[in-house]
């Protein structure tokens, strides 16, 4: 037995113990469920919204042990039947519903609801699920209005039920490693001064629907849709969604906030419907934020294009005075760079924080399977210096962590672990609210055509 008198409680110990105790108390209502005598780790789940994103989440959740699908809901039979059939193939027996209210009233043994419906219904569905006593995993963006997003946080708080938002990069082990071990942990980037980010997509046709499978005008009106075209292409209409910054930029600007640990202080933006004839939301937009970090202002740009895939796809690029991190859900678009002025990274290679590239940028010339390893090969002619003021080239490195699961799976696992074991959520309603406020301000700034500012209180639900 240890001698307590020989280990005096330090201030640090006290704070650490207090924090752990606080976390346990906060998680107690959820942990208690696992100790209710059933001893089961099974989580019963319903899905509201079985379109493209709903199917992605279903497929990811199917790989998680102990998740049991009890119901699926979608107003369109095509989506509903698809989800029901695929779940039946994997041994589940979900009850199908057109109306989420009927689902929540009928199926009583549901623990959690996954919501992947159009943005304008997130608040309505989430608030109803919380009021019915269910935990909620809701797709981003929280809502297409700040008021809607706030109502979701309030409902979670009042019901004491978990609310996780689908900013799944926060649970991606590569992103977590980058944040904890590279950006904040060992500060390999030095003082971050700038961020750029982008999501560039090629032109795509509007979605249609199979002949004879459309919803009636009355049914569409009942659920708030003007017509079948808007129902299928809701992301492009202001009534239903927040536009491309909400659809694509929300993932990445959430990473800006999360990685820096602060919310922006100002936003300016420009965008327009310059290409498509059948859309309400802008098809290209650029936003500029200022982040007031402890070390000074970080200026960040974000660029969403839906008319070209040129420019490198999708990534976030954090730039500091000693290094830079280009990170993406695609491992191929992820790279670390060390400035010539920064200390060598050999120590961090040994510790597994960074890795010398084995392939791609920064890697030694490829060795054929039959060639001897370790032979120095002559490179081509060195790049001509075109300007004597050019700085030395960056050295390229890799992050030695990869995700070997579906990209949404770790985030869903975190949600289910929070229900079962009280694990802290990686993207709670409160923190996602700050992201929603950040994103929706871009749309305001595009309309206002001037710089808008945030007050710290704006980010609190």
């Amino acid at each position, binding site marked *: 037995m240890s001698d307590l008198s020989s280990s005096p409680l330090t201030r640090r110990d006290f704070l650490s113990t207090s924090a752990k105790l606080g976390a346990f108390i906060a998680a107690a209502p959820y942990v208690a469920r696992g100790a209710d005598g059933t001893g089961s780790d099974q989580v019963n789940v319903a899905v509201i919204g079985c379109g493209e994103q709903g199917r992605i989440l279903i497929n990811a959740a199917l790989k998680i042990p102990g998740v049991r699908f009890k119901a699926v809901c979608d107003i369109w039979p095509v989506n509903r039947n698809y989800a029901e059939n695929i779940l039946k193939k994997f041994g589940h027996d979900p009850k199908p519903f057109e109306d989420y209210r009927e689902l929540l009233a009928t199926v009583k043994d549901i623990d959690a609801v996954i919501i992947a419906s159009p943005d304008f219904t997130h608040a309505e569905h989430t608030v109803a699920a919380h009021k019915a006593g269910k935990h909620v995993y809701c797709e981003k963006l929280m809502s297409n209005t700040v008021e809607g997003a706030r109502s979701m946080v309030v409902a979670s708080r009042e019901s004491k039920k978990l609310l996780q938002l689908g900013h799944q990069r926060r649970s991606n082990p590569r992103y977590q490693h980058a944040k904890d071990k590279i950006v904040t942990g060992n500060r390999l980037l030095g003082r971050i001064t700038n961020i750029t980010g982008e999501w560039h997509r090629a032109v795509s046709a509007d979605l249609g629907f199979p002949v004879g499978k459309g919803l009636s005008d009355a049914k569409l009106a009942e659920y708030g849709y003007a017509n079948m075209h808007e129902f299928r292409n809701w992301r492009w209409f202001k009534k239903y969604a927040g536009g491309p910054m909400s659809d694509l930029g929300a993932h990445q600007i959430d990473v800006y906030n999360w990685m820096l640990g602060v919310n922006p202080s100002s936003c300016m933006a420009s965008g327009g419907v310059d290409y498509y004839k059948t859309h309400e939301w802008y098809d290209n937009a650029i936003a500029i934020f200022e982040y007031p970090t402890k070390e000074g202002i970080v200026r960040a740009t974000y660029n969403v294009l839906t008319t070209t895939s040129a420019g490198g796809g999708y990534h976030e690029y954090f730039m500091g005075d000693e290094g830079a991190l280009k990170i993406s859900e695609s491992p191929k678009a992820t790279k670390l760079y060390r400035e010539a002025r920064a200390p060598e990274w050999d120590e961090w290679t040994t510790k597994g924080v960074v890795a010398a590239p084995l392939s791609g940028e920064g890697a030694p010339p490829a060795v*054929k*399977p*039959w*060639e*001897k*390893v*370790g032979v120095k090969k002559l490179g081509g002619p060195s790049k001509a210096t075109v300007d004597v003021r050019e700085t030395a080239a960056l050295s390229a490195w890799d992050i030695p962590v990869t995700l070997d699961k579906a990209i949404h799976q770790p985030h869903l696992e975190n949600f289910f672990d929070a229900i079962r074991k009280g694990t802290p959520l990686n993207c709670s309603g409160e923190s996602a609210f700050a992201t929603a406020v950040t994103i929706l301000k871009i749309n305001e700034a595009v309309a206002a055509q001037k710089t808008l500012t945030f007050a710290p209180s704006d980010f609190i639900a």
Partner: protein
Amino acid sequence: MSESSSNDTRCAYTYAFFLIRLWLGLRAFFAGLEKFEKGGAYSFTAYYENMGRMASGITGASFLPLWTTRPFAHSIGYLLILVGVTLLLGIKTRLTLLAHGLLYVALSFGLMVVQEGEGVAWLGMHVILAIGGLLLVQYNRFALARD
């Protein structure tokens, strides 16, 4: 053609052949020797690791079974050193040039079957030089043991 001019030509051919012999001898010797190297150290262990990789690499990328590539890979280093030394010393030079040419034809074949065009061209230069040597071998001098 005067006798003096004929002597000059003969002298030039003699030097030309000597250069070819020297180049091919050095090239074969060091091509064999580097197969024993790994991480800056030379050993028989390194040789069999390097050659094992070569054999399995060619087998993996072609129709050649391992039982053909492995014996070739395990012997090529020793043969290149042997050919290199005999060329440098001038022992049975005509025969050695033929052996040198055949070794590089065999190596080229290995790269042909894995569609490594640049490597084939590179090795082809060795074969062409061996052919040049055979055409000039009558001018061989400075040899320990003539044909």
